[in-house]
C-alpha cells in the first residue's frame, strides 16, 4: 500500500491510498464500506469512519493493530470497487477517488512531531565528513523540530545562516507500534512502513565551529541539532510504502540527484546498524510511538559521495528503490 496525506478540492487534509493513478480518500471509502458491506446505518457510518479511519495519518497510525486491520479491509474493498473513469462518493457525499493531479499531495504524516535522525550510519559518511566511526552497535542520534517536515514538490527554504547546505539521502522508517526495549528480533513488528527521507543541514554552522577538529568537546557537534533544524529541512514522502511491499529493507538502492545529475548513490545494505539494530539501540531507554520517523542515516558510496550540496534554484530528487522519488525545489 502507498499511503499519503493530501489536501482535497475544499482544502481539507485527508488520508489516501494510491491505486494506479488515483488517490482514494480512505475515510470516505471506509464510510462507504461500512454502509455497503458492514451493515452499519448511514446515520452512524460517517462518525464511525472518522473514528476508525481518521483524516489525520498520525491518529490512524496511533490506532496501531486496529488501525492496520481497518486499513487492510478498506484497501481491499476500494481496490475492487474503484473504476477508472467513475467518480465514487461516500453515503454522506464525500468524494472518494481523485485523480493524482486533482489533489495537493502533502508529506505523508503532516501531524508528525517526533523525528529521529541517525548520524554516521554508513562508514563512507564518517570518512567523507572526517568524523570518527562510533563503537560497534552504537551511533549518534539527532532530533528535528516538526516544522522541518515538508512533502513532495514542496519548497526547501534557504536558511539565513547558510552559505553551504548539505543534503543526505536516507531511508525513513515509520514506526507502527508503541514500544520500549524492543529486541532486534522483534523490531520489524514495530515498523509500519518506509518513506524517502531527505536530511538537510547547514554546513557553515558545523564547519565554522571546527567540525572534525578532534578537541575534547568538538564544538561542531554542539550545533548539530541547530544545523539540521531550519524550517523545511526534512522533506519526507511522497508516500508511506507499507512494509509488506518491502521484503528486505536492507537491500534498497538509492540515488540523489541535483538538476537531474546523480550526486549520491548507495544501498541500504551498507548501513552500520541495520534498521532492526537501530530500533533496539534507540528504544533501550526511550519509548517509540506509532507515527515516529526514524531516518536511518545518509547513504553513499565510493564513487558517489554521501555529501551533496544543493544551491538556491536547484531541483533536488531523492529516490529509493521500491519507495519512490521525492522531489523538492530549493528557493532563496
Amino acid at each position: 500500500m502507498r499511503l499519503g496525506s493530501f489536501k482535497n478540492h475544499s482544502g481539507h487534509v485527508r488520508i489516501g491510498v494510491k491505486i494506479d493513478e488515483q488517490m482514494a480518500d480512505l475515510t470516505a471509502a471506509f464510510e462507504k464500506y461500512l454502509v455497503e458491506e458492514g451493515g452499519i446505518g448511514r446515520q452512524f457510518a460517517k462518525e464511525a469512519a472518522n473514528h476508525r479511519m481518521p483524516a489525520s495519518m498520525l491518529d490512524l497510525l496511533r490506532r496501531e493493530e486496529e488501525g492496520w486491520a481497518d486499513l487492510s479491509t478498506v484497501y481491499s474493498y476500494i481496490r475492487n470497487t474503484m473504476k477508472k473513469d467513475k467518480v465514487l462518493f461516500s453515503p454522506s457525499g464525500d468524494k472518494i477517488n481523485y485523480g493524482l493531479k486533482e489533489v495537493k499531495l502533502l508529506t505523508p504524516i503532516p501531524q508528525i512531531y517526533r523525528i529521529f535522525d541517525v548520524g554516521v550510519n554508513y562508514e563512507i559518511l564518517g570518512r567523507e565528513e572526517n568524523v570518527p566511526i562510533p563503537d560497534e552497535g552504537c551511533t549518534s542520534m539527532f532530533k528535528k523540530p516538526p516544522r522541518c517536515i515538508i512533502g513532495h514538490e514542496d519548497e526547501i527554504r534557504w536558511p539565513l545562516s547558510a552559505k553551504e547546505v548539505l543534503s543526505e539521502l536516507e531511508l525513513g522508517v515509520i514506526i507502527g507500534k508503541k514500544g520500549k526495549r524492543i529486541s532486534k528480533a522483534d523490531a520489524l513488528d514495530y515498523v509500519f512502513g518506509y518513506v524517502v527521507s531527505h536530511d538537510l543541514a547547514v554546513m557553515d554552522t558545523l564547519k565554522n565551529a571546527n567540525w572534525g577538529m578532534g578537541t575534547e568537546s568538538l564544538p561542531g557537534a554542539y550545533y548539530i541539532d541547530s544545523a539540521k533544524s531550519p524550517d523545511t529541512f526534512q522533506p519526507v514522502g511522497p508516500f508511506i510504502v507499507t512494509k509488506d511491499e518491502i521484503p528486505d529493507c536492507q537491500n534498497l538502492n538509492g540515488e540523489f540527484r541535483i538538476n537531474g545529475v546523480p550526486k549520491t548513490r548507495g544501498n541500504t545494505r551498507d548501513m552500520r546498524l541495520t534498521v532492526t539494530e537501530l530500533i533496539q539501540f534507540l528504544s533501550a531507554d526511550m519509548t517509540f510511538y506509532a507515527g515516529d520517523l526514524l531516518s536511518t542515516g545518509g547513504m553513499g558510496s565510493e564513487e558517489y559521495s554521501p555529501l551533496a550540496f544543493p544551491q538556491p534554484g536547484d531541483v533536488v530528487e531523492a529516490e529509493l528503490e521500491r519507495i519512490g522519488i521525492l522531489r523538492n525545489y530549493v528557493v532563496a
Partner: protein
Amino acid sequence: MKLVSFRNHAGETRIGVKVGDNIADLTAGLERYLVEEAGTDPLCAIEVTNERMPASMLDLIKREEEGQADLQLTVSYINKIAQKGKTLFSPSGGKITYGLEEITLLTPVPQIPRTIFNMEYNYPAYERVYGTVPPDHGTTAMFMVNPETVTGPSDYIVWPATATEVASAVELGVIIGKRGKRIPQDKALDYIFGYTIVNGITAISILRGMGPGRHCLPAAFYFTRAMTMDTFQPVGPFIALKDEIPDPQDVEAELRVNGKVVSRGNTRDMRCSVARLIEFLSRDITLDAGDLISTGAIGTFDFPPEAPVKVGDVIEAEIGKIGVLCNNVVA
C-alpha cells in the same frame, strides 16, 4: 502570577492560578466572571469559557495575546472574590478554589505536541570546572528532547538501562508565548509567556562510553540520546509570568540532592542571555507558542552545574521566584 496544571478530585486535567496557598481553577473562574460581571447567559458561559480559557495550558498559550488578556481578566476577578476559607463555585457548579492538598500538581504544560529545546554549555562554569571548549561567541549548543520526556513535580526519574552515570542540573525554563521567526533580541521578551524550573537529567556515561575516546568522538554527538530518555526532564511546578520575573537575567537557582546543596548560581552568568537565545534559535527555526527553551545548567566554579545522582536520591531544583521542583530517582 503563577500558573499550574493540575488534576482535580474528579481526575480531570485543569489549569489554575496560585492564590495565596490555594489554587483557583481558571476555567471555572472565567465562567463565573462571564455570568456575574459580563452578563453572559449561564447556558452559554460554559461553552464560551471552554473556548477562551481551555483546560489545556497549551491551548491557552496558543491563544497568544488574546489568551493572555483573558488570563489577566480572570485572575484579577478571582483575586477580587477570593476569600480565605471559603470555597467558590462556578455557575455550572464547577469548583473554583482548591487547597493544594486536594489536587495533584502536573507539569505546567502537560499537552503535546510542542518542541523542547535544551541549551547546553551556557554558563562559563563549564569551561572552568570541566575544561569544556566554549561554543562560539553569541551561540551555544542546542539539543532537542521529545515532549513526552517532560514529567511533572513528584514524578519519578527512572534510572536508564544503558547508563552507569546520571547527572542532574537546575535550569531556567522559558515558555514561548507567541509564534515567531527571526526575532531580534530587543523584541525577544515579547515572545515569552513565562518561566519555569527544569531539572535537566543527562545520562553522562553515554557521552563518554560510545566511541573511541573523548578526544576523538564528540561527547556532543550523543547528547540528544543521553537527554531524551523517558522521564529525563521534570518541569514545574509553576509557570511564573513576567510580572514575577521582570528580568530573567537576575534569577537565583539552587540544586539540592538529599537536602545538600550541590549546584548554585544566578542567571546573570549566562553566556547567551534569554533574549539572545531566542534570537539565535529563531533565526531559521519557527518558535511556536508553548515551546520550551531550557536555558542551560546553572552553576559556578564552587557549585558546578552538573550533579551526579543515584537511585534513591531526592532532587530539589529551586528557583526562588518560581518554586521548588522535587523528584526522586528510582530504579
